[in-house]
């Protein structure tokens, strides 16, 4: 398997083949133990430069990418650009060209507008890694979720995965739906009608079901993935109150009991405890939220390694 992702950019899971996804996961697997060493550093990316270009605030993802780059000995620079500085005159194109002129090997970009990584990839010589673009994709999140699922379930093919919450605005949901269905899982989505488009099943050719009720989605699931409710959406009146959301859509122990006995719970973070997920569920042994964060570093090491010229490890 010597064909890494197209142009070495990682813009979305949608563009990847199942073999490429598995290749990335296997590569991540091989990087995992580095983070457990006394000296958490290998020279794989020595002399390479990675720019973390974050137009949207992020603690977890940015830190995860930064650690991933540093553990591979790359030079990592973090740039946080508030979207308002663009309105001061610099166009997205100028920002990209300016950074490109400093000859980074890889630009990790997060932006609140869908498509920004794709727009940058058209003009940039550096490899572009999408760290989340609007409601479009968040490919490394889906990869780390897949790694977590694989670790605990031994496989992805044939699993029943429920995704619950604000599907409409969720890049995490989109990337996960693409990844999981490509690898043979069955995905069911549920949430308030205002946030779960009834025709969302179109998103992929097969393997995706839109459920009318949260309970239907969770019933007999192997994996329950809970999406974060973005409180700022409150203004748009997608649902009346957080209280009502918690009662009707939140993952409580009662709802989780509908899933398989050995079902696992994932959440991309940061959690709103007591809203989309009850604290006792979040803190239970079935919740793998911290594993997700742990695997995130390995996945991002793999992605940076592949984007800057490494080849996929095959099994």
């Amino acid at each position: 398997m010597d064909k890494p992702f197209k142009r070495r950019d990682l813009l979305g899971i949608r563009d990847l083949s199942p073999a490429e996804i598995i290749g990335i996961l296997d590569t991540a697997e091989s990087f995992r133990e580095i983070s457990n060493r006394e000296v958490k550093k290998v020279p794989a990316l020595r002399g390479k430069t990675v720019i973390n270009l974050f137009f949207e605030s992020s603690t977890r993802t940015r830190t995860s990418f930064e650690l991933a780059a540093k553990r591979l000995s790359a030079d990592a620079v973090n740039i946080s650009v508030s979207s308002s500085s663009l309105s001061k005159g610099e166009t997205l194109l100028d920002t990209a060209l300016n950074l490109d002129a400093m000859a980074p090997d890889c630009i990790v970009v997060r932006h609140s507008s869908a498509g920004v990584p794709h727009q940058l990839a058209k003009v940039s010589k550096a490899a572009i890694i999408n760290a989340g673009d609007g409601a479009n994709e968040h490919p490394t999140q889906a990869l780390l979720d897949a790694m977590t699922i694989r670790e605990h379930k031994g496989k992805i093919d044939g699993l029943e995965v429920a995704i619950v919450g604000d599907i409409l605005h969720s890049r995490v949901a989109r990337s996960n739906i693409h990844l999981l269905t490509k690898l043979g899982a069955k995905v069911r989505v549920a949430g308030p009608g205002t946030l779960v488009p009834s025709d969302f099943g179109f998103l992929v050719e097969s393997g995706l079901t839109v459920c009318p009720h949260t309970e239907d989605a969770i019933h007999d699931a192997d994996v329950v993935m809970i999406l974060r409710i973005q409180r700022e959406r409150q203004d748009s009146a997608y649902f009346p109150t957080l209280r009502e959301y918690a009662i009707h859509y939140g993952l409580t122990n009662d709802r989780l009991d509908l899933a398989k006995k050995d079902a696992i719970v994932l959440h991309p973070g940061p959690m709103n405890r007591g809203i989309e997920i009850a604290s006792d569920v979040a803190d239970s042994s079935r919740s793998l939220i911290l594993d997700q964060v742990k695997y995130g570093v390995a996945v991002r090491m793999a992605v940076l390694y592949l984007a800057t010229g490494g080849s996929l490890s095959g099994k």
Partner: protein
Amino acid sequence: MSERLLIANGHLIDPAAPENTGMSVLVEDGKVSAWFGPNDPKPERCEVFDAAGLLVAPGFIDMHVHLREPGQEHKETIASGCAAAVAGGWTSVCPMPNTNPVNDNAAITRYMIEQSERGGLANVFPIGAITKSSDGVELAEMGEMKAAGAVAVSDDGRPVPNAGIMRRAMQYAKDFDLPVIDHCEDKSLSSGGVMHEGKISLLLGLKGMPALAEEIDVVRDILLAKETGAHIHIAHVSTRGAVEAIRSAKNEGINITCEVTPHHFTLTDKVVEGYDTNTKMAPPLRSEEHLEAIIEGIKDGTIDAIATDHAPHHADEKALEYDRAPFGITGLETAIGLAFNELVHKGVIGLERLVEMCSTNPAKIFRLKGRGTLTPGSIADIVVIDPQLKWTYSNSESRSKARNSPFDGWDFYGAAVATFVDGKLVYRR
């Protein structure tokens, strides 16, 4: 002696007359004075333009453009917009009032016309605002604007949201025989949207503008037109529901007309993949089922006219995130190529209907006397077309100041090769 021009031996396309091959059109003092058949003796002592093998038609009239002057001259000026217009076969253009300041009074209407006269290319027939500053609150001085040369009223991209104000606007515009143009978009349904709401918007994670946002306003306007008897003209129809509603309103005898843009009869929302901001406009590119309904509407006459909605923006303004880039694309130079490629060469419509949609009907809808036809006595606004000429559109060679066309690099079969305004040659390919 007066200036005499003979546009000789062309294939005359004029819905006012049966198709005529080998006709010569005599132009004197800016007017068409006579036609000569292939066997008639030709007039002497006149300049001759040889149109053998070419189509000769009344100049095209673009009912919907944005010329950005006054106020946004970095995007376009009346001079540059008119230069692009005549290269596309348009002899008249009708600029929307969303200038800065808004064309909501006679002084601005007059200024726009004067600027066009200075340029001496296409005719400019401004469209005045419905409400002051297009704020949707108080009616603008429609009577005064009409006296200054406005041919219709519209609040275009800021459609009047309040049905009560719109009703009054229609009642009032009717007194002055002014068509009321509506960009139908209920912003409570489309706000924040940047593309058509559907499968592709869900896939791309972009916020959608549902077809419903257009249709709900079309239906409202139909009811208002029925009640007031005013002439409502629906701008850039783009959805199946809108076409169907207009079709049934016409069958009911309601005073309604509508236009379609070349991009809406050519492209679907699929082209938004890749996030090229030159695929972003309002109304947005719709899905296949809507495009099919648009083609049906063009075929059966429900759709009266082709208008470009030429919306120039500076390249820097379009080099932004898809969410933040402004709506709109240029269209004056590519419309004729798209009409030939997508409608004429594919057999959707014939040449006569093309001329009807681009010239005769716009002249009728805006009550432009002596235009939209080449019958003797009419104004000599003439386009000469080579229906087979292969050419490639390039943004970098556009006569517009702007470069925001999604058709950069497209090959077209059919072009304006000469454009005459008031009998004067203003463009020659």
